[in-house]
């Protein structure tokens, strides 16, 4: 299988007033094309830092990162990022928010009508065509997150990076959006790296779950091959032995091997 994303002995050190803070050390991770990988770990373990490194928002202090055999030198539209708090610009409508991304990626080669068509298609993908002309404060949290996903997908990125995309949503909306995401990703054949702290979300959506040890100096503790056939049905899986085994091994990692001292 093609190694699409390669993270090789990456370390990340932040300079703080109290001296250097080593957030990540010795991270080795490869992701195949079309694979869905989750990063899970306790809060503060540096999983978002790792995602930001892949996004290019941070530069690693050690090691190398390659996407499709090219060094990741900074942020770029080949990686679509969905932020935890959606990060839509409040002064632009949903349509305009997506248009900003589409225009950047395809503006040079395509006509206005083609660009608008792309935006409409992205909105349609997340079923938000009726909300196109609404401003972010006029729609619900779940809808905002869907616009965020649509914005990321509209750029046709090589890779989709999701930073706790459903963390701020209620359980019902979250389940619904997870199912939507799976369908969208399957249809687009996207390669996905998702940060989450939700065990069910990780197991249900991923091909592999990458479990991270507690920080500081966090690294990859274990990697779980989920191996459940797709499409997956959350109801059918609820009593599935393989699903429960996966779930248990992640829970064991988080709550036995990496139990945080009571804060």
């Amino acid at each position, binding site marked *: 299988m093609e190694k699409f994303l390669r993270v090789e002995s990456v370390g990340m050190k932040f300079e703080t007033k109290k001296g250097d803070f080593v957030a990540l050390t010795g991270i080795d991770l490869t992701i195949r094309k079309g694979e869905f990988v989750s990063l899970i770990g306790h809060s503060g373990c540096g999983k978002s830092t790792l995602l930001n490194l892949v996004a*290019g*928002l941070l530069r690693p202090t050690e090691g190398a990162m390659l996407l499709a055999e090219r060094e990741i030198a900074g*942020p770029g539209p080949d990686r679509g990022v969905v932020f935890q708090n959606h990060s839509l*610009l409040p*002064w*632009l409508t949903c349509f305009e928010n997506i248009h*900003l991304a589409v225009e950047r990626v395809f503006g040079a080669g395509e006509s206005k009508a083609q660009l608008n068509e792309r935006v409409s298609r992205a909105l349609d993908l997340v079923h938000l065509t009726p909300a196109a002309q609404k*401003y972010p404060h006029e729609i619900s949290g779940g809808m905002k997150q869907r616009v965020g996903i649509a914005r990321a997908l509209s750029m046709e990125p090589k890779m989709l990076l999701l930073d706790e995309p459903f963390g701020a949503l209620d359980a019902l*909306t979250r389940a619904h959006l997870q199912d*939507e995401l799976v369908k969208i990703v399957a249809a687009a054949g996207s390669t996905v790296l998702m940060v989450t702290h939700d065990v069910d979300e990780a197991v249900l959506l991923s091909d592999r779950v990458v479990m991270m040890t507690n920080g500081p100096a966090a690294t990859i503790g274990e990697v779980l091959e989920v191996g459940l056939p797709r499409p997956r049905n959350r109801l059918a899986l609820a009593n599935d032995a393989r699903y429960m085994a996966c779930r248990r091994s992640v829970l064991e990692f988080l709550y036995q091997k990496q139990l945080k001292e009571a804060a």
Partner: protein
Amino acid sequence: MSAIPLRKDALFPTPVLVHSSPAHPAAPVIEERARKAAAKAPATGTGYRRVRAPEWLVSALAMALGIAACVAVWEMVSKFNASIPNPAVVGKAAIAIFSDPFYRKGPNDQGIGWNVLMSLQRVGIGFGLAALVGIPLGFAVGRFRFLSDMAAPIIAILKPVSPLAWLPIGLLVFKAANPAAIYVIFVCSLWPMIVNTAVGVRQIPQDYLNVARVLNLSEWKVFTKILFPAVLPYMITGVRLSVGVAWLVIVAAEMLTGGVGIGFWVWDEWNNLKVEHIIIAIITIGVVGLALEYVMVMLAKRFSYN
């Protein structure tokens, strides 16, 4: 693929149980409740009910009362001090003045309308120049740490200086009263504009800048789509503070420079010992200041995105 059931009533249909058949085990209790509720309902319709005046009426009354109290105090003061004209005299003078606000009898005797307009013009020019200089400067200071450190001591020292202290310099440089007054307005409007714009630039959430970086937007797009809209509310606050200060300062500046203007008019009427006109001027200055503030608040509302 269906949308999320956002409508509450889709999940919780309105209860129609009250009218369900008595065969339902819970029905009798519910019917009992419904009957009680039905028996209560007309009582609330015909019995005692507290009638409360609408809120706007109460606050309008309170405002009227406040003004009336103020006028009463004024009346009392004028009774004990003969040099202060009473409200009736001032009212009569006001009618005379405002019935012909735009007369012109030579350079030193013009209607109150001209005086107010001249003052507003000075404020407008001085303030407009300050915006032209202050807002870009504020952006630069907010965006670059080095410039911010450069500007910090200058702004810190010059901001607390009374704008009128700049007047002699203005007179010296421009050798005329009118540009000197405009220059004073410029100086006093400049600081709030720089400081607020800079604060606005620094307050831009990192999330928005991350969006800009992830999308790899051009500098121009970053400015027009992210920086400018994000800073706009702060900028308008700066503009609002500046206009307020400018309107305070223009009166004092005109007292010193003379010419035509509401401040000069106050001083002129003091020399004529027409105290009722001074009181009219005070109220006029207040009303114009209030109007300026109102326009700015409306502007701020128009451009706030939350």
